[in-house]
């Protein structure tokens, strides 16, 4: 087992400090939203979480393609690391969205294109984890995982389009078309800064976790190989 690299140690501390700074910015730097009040504060981390979630799923799709081209199990480790972390971040994004939606829309959930697509995306990657669990051979697991991230990643934009089409043709009964009624708001510069800062901070946190998870993946692979050696 290799010791934690120095850079990773530093990155851990940096992300901790940045996170504290982001929390401070959200609560004290950014102004209180006029209409929604304090609940709007959840928005900064909500966007950041969703962003990181998407980032991870894209990273997973790309490493899936690279795996299929190179057949190097290293990329499979990267892929599963990205999916696992993104599953959690995306779930947090959905939950924080719900927390915001209840006071803003007066409902925890609505079948809006983004919400529905988010839920389906989450389900696709849960299915991905289940698929991997059912396969013992690491090489086959990697191949199937890569193929499924590809299929899943391609279907998501189409799902979004189909649901948006569904909603635009369907008359909007509850909540008119104007953005303010749906909980939209104009951002002041300070709000925008807080949001962008949160996104940057969560990206750093993502990289830290990603690195850790890849290291765990490498260790798991070593353990698997040692086990195989024992049984032979």
């Amino acid at each position, binding site marked *: 087992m290799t010791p934690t690299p120095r850079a990773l140690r530093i990155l851990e501390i940096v992300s901790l400090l940045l996170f504290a700074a982001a929390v401070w910015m959200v609560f004290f730097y950014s102004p209180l939203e006029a209409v929604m009040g304090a609940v709007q504060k959840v928005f900064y981390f909500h966007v950041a979480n969703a962003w990181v979630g998407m980032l991870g799923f894209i990273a997973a799709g790309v490493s899936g393609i690279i795996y299929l081209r190179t057949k190097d199990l290293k990329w499979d480790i990267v892929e599963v690391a990205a999916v696992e972390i993104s599953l959690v971040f995306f779930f947090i994004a959905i939950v924080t969205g719900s927390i915001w939606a209840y006071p803003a829309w007066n409902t925890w959930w609505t079948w809006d294109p983004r919400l529905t697509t988010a839920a389906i995306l989450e389900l696709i990657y849960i299915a991905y984890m*289940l698929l991997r669990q059912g396969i013992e051979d690491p090489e086959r697991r990697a191949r199937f995982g890569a*193929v499924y991230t590809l*299929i899943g990643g391609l279907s998501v934009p189409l799902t979004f389009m189909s649901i948006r089409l569904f909603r635009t043709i369907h008359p909007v009964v509850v909540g008119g078309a104007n953005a303010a009624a749906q909980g939209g708001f104009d951002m002041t510069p300070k709000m925008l800064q807080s949001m962008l800062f949160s996104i940057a901070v969560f990206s750093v946190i993502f990289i830290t976790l990603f690195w850790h998870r890849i290291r765990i993946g490498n260790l798991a692979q070593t353990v698997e190989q040692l086990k195989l050696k024992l049984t032979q």
Partner: protein
Amino acid sequence: MSNTTTHRRTSLGFGSFFRAVGAIAWKDLAAELRSRELLSAMLVFAMLVILIFNFALELDVKTRATITSGVLWVTFAFAGTLGLNRSMAVEKDRGCLDGLLLAPVDRSAIYFGKVISNLAFMLIVEAVVLPVYSILYNTNLFSIGLIGVILLGSIGYVAVGTLLSSMAVQTRTRDVMLPILLFPVIVPVLVAAVKASSGVLQGLPMDEILPWLNLLVVYDVIFTAIAFMVFDYVVEE
């Protein structure tokens, strides 16, 4: 391994590729014609789903007008999973898949052969369900438009379903794996097919149905192409 595949690809022309596809599809259809186990299971299951819907949703005249297409597509999707799972499991269990893989044909010929036979099974089920539904609920479901929508929707469903079912049968949890893998990625097809079918059934003007048909065609093209490209990775040993 990859050398031999590329060699096969270059040495065989289009004619023999289509012959191989036809042979595989025909093998499935002939086997089914003799045993009839797959089709009968799918049909009985489809009927049961409709029966359950009848009680679960109280399909009276007023509700029926708006949700017929939904009921039909849920029935097709469920019966389809049954068929896809079985058709791949048979190959796996009796070692037929290994035999097919040893055959000197392009792997994608196996994929397209399976797609054609799976599509045939699904269309047969749909061809039985439609008139039965029409009789049971005293409506007329026969129109060129609806048949076109069903064809487009089934192609997308089977194109992805065949690929994923050949993955699912190779996992430990294979009996439950296929619907979990298939349903989240098939959402665009189901949404588009349901909306297009109900548009046709309600006699909406063509320009309201066209976006859905476009979406179905786009899905079919993209996913047939992708499945064609990655099928090699799914069956290789």
